[in-house]
């Protein structure tokens, strides 16, 4: 008889549900994909219903519910923060205490009520795992390793912001930690805020901005903002941060230190923001490298697993790989709080006696991170037919060949195949694809499809066996969470940049795959193996046959500000709202030229909030 455990993360950001059967993840999804509210923090009712439906189960079949943090411990931290911020924290106290007092400290009761309200059967026992334990479990128990060091770095859970663990078999032992308010995640978020981006969603924009700048503020950051020890432990100088007192990250201290007020959102980026991004990125990389080395020293392990929001900093991850302090690095694809739903479920499942059957096979337990909903060709056909949408139906090999030809000819293709990804990255299930060889692809896709700032680079997928021809990457990167340098053989000599500065530097082709090469010759790589995603693998093979190269631009199937598409309707809507040329959805190929005129009552750009 199977043992089902349902994990839930909710109420802060990136709510999610994950279902584990006998220790193996069988379904997981973020709530935002169903509600279309980016980073939705509401109770993940839709995600819960989906995961149970995918397993053909109800709550009556579930042995245990696992919630991803300890609400009582978190409340004690919140109280300590109120006390610690006096006499300045009045507005935060007034704004947040009522919610904490009435519901957040009794979250298990709230979750029980919400689950009962779904009418999916009687609610089983609900337990919790601490936030960093949930992260650590999502990283280690899902990894391919029998034993490993585990490093979790984020904004904050209950108290812990940085933790090192030792994973062995079905056990995870906590080793050391750093506590709030000292947080690498909050340091990075402070700079995200100061540079005019949204906290908790704009951090990767700051990371993408860093290569344009010089780290001329790095010394100032080390002297005044963070005391970083050789072993990676650190404390922040709280005089410069406002998050203890209120709902903003920085105040006058930052303005004085960095020569002026914060950049307003959507204002023009200046040299200062480029250099601030470069500076905090450099300091963060230094800290993460030192943390990784300490994790090695304290555990004696040669493999490292990572999770927590800072583990989404794939540039820092790339430095760990290049440093070779570990033989291998594995990062949980849902490294943020959504992945905690999975981690909590795995932790409870293994406590109940489940094993890690995948260990020893060389594979992880994530099924390529393809744990979300899929739509059969029959369902897609019904949707297309009901909408009077013109299409052609093709066998998989023919579809792959035709899409490859289109990409080679410079077309942009929406690719909607199989189960949806779990985690923030598109991995060839809900992707928009383009020609990596063409220097025009970057600006075309940015402006006409993503409607987004032009400084952000796109990322490549490549057949795992071909990766070494294009990237200096000594290991697989199946979840696009490692940035690697472009291989020397793939680089192009660049003339003097002709006095180009700032964002214009991106226009200079620097390699044979210019659309995915950043200004510092780096790329955020996804290596693709047939076992993880057969359809995508088949497409890249067809592309290689067509062009000699299996590298493709892979960006997420959405416009700026909306979550990645989930359903055929959302895919078609995004296709029609943008200048995507073709849509390959299941066994069907749709050409933009054949489509009827797209009409909407409202301008959708006013409906989708900018991220």
């Amino acid at each position, binding site marked *: 008889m199977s043992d089902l455990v349902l994990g839930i993360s909710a109420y802060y950001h990136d709510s999610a549900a994950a279902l584990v059967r006998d220790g193996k993840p069988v379904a997981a999804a973020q709530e935002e994909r169903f509600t279309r509210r980016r980073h939705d923090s509401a109770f993940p009712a839709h995600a819960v219903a989906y995961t149970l439906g995918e397993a053909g189960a109800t709550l009556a079949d579930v042995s245990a519910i696992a919630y991803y943090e300890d609400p009582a411990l978190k409340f004690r931290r919140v109280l*300590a*923060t*109120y*006390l*610690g*911020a*006096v*006499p300045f924290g*009045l507005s935060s*106290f*007034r704004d947040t*205490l*009522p919610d904490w007092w009435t519901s957040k400290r009794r979250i298990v009761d709230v979750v029980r009520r919400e689950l009962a309200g779904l009418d999916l059967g009687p609610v089983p026992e609900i337990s919790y795992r*601490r936030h*960093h*334990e949930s992260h650590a479990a999502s990283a280690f128990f899902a990894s391919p390793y029998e034993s490993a060091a585990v490093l979790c770095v984020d904004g904050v859970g209950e*108290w*812990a912001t940085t*933790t*090192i*663990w030792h994973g062995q078999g079905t056990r995870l032992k*906590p*080793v*050391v*930690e*750093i*506590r*709030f*308010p*000292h947080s690498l995640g909050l340091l990075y978020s402070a700079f995200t805020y100061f540079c005019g981006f949204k906290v908790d969603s704009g951090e990767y924009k700051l990371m993408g901005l860093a290569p344009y700048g010089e780290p001329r503020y790095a010394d100032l950051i080390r002297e005044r903002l963070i*005391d970083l*020890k*050789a*072993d990676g*432990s*650190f*404390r922040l*100088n*709280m005089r410069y941060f406002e998050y*203890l007192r209120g709902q903003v990250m920085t105040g006058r201290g930052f303005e004085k230190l960095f020569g002026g007020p914060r950049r307003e959102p959507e204002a023009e980026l200046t040299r200062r923001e480029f250099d601030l991004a470069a500076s905090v990125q450099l300091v963060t990389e230094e800290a993460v490298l030192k943390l990784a080395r*300490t994790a090695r020293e304290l555990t004696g392990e040669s493999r490292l697993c990572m999770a927590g929001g800072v583990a989404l900093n794939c540039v820092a991850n790339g430095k760990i790989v290049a440093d070779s302090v570990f033989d291998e690095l594995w990062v949980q694809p849902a490294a943020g709080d959504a992945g905690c739903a999975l981690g909590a479920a795995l932790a409870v499942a293994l406590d109940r006696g489940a094993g890690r059957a995948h260990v020893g096979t060389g594979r992880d337990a994530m099924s390529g991170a393809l744990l979300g909903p899929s739509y059969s060709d029959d369902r897609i056909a019904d949707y297309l037919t009901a909408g009077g949408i013109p299409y052609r139906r093709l066998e998989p090999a023919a579809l792959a060949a035709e899409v490859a030809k289109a990409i080679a000819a410079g077309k942009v293709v929406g690719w909607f195949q199989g189960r949806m990804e779990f985690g923030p990255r598109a991995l060839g299930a809900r992707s928009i694809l383009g020609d990596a060889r063409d220097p025009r692809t970057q600006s075309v896709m940015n402006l006409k499809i993503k409607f987004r700032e032009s400084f952000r680079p796109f990322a490549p997928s490549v057949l795992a066996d071909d990766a070494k021809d294009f990237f200096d990457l000594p290991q697989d990167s199946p979840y696009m969470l490692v940035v690697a340098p472009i291989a020397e053989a793939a680089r192009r000599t660049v003339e003097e940049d002709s006095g180009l500065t700032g964002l214009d530097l991106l226009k200079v082709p620097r390699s044979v795959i210019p659309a995915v090469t950043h200004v510092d010759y780096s790329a955020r790589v996804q290596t693709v193996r047939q076992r993880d995603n057969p359809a995508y693998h088949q497409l890249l093979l067809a592309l290689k046959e067509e062009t000699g190269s299996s590298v493709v631009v892979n960006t997420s199937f959405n416009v700026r500000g909306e979550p990645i598409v989930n359903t055929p309707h959302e895919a078609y809507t995004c296709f029609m709202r943008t200048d995507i040329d073709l849509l390959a959805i299941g066994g069907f190929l749709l050409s933009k030229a054949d489509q009827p005129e797209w009409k909407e009552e409202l301008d959708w750009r006013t409906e989708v909030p900018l991220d």
Partner: protein
Amino acid sequence: MRKAILTIAYVLFVIPAGLVIRVLRDPMRRSWTRGRDSYWQNSGG
């Protein structure tokens, strides 16, 4: 009304308690100690 009650509670109870606790043992552990080798704490999990 709720805002007023919370303000009074903050002024009468939270501020004095916070100041006393900060003098005795700052829960936020804000001070830097340049001479220390490490800020790691034993893990509470």
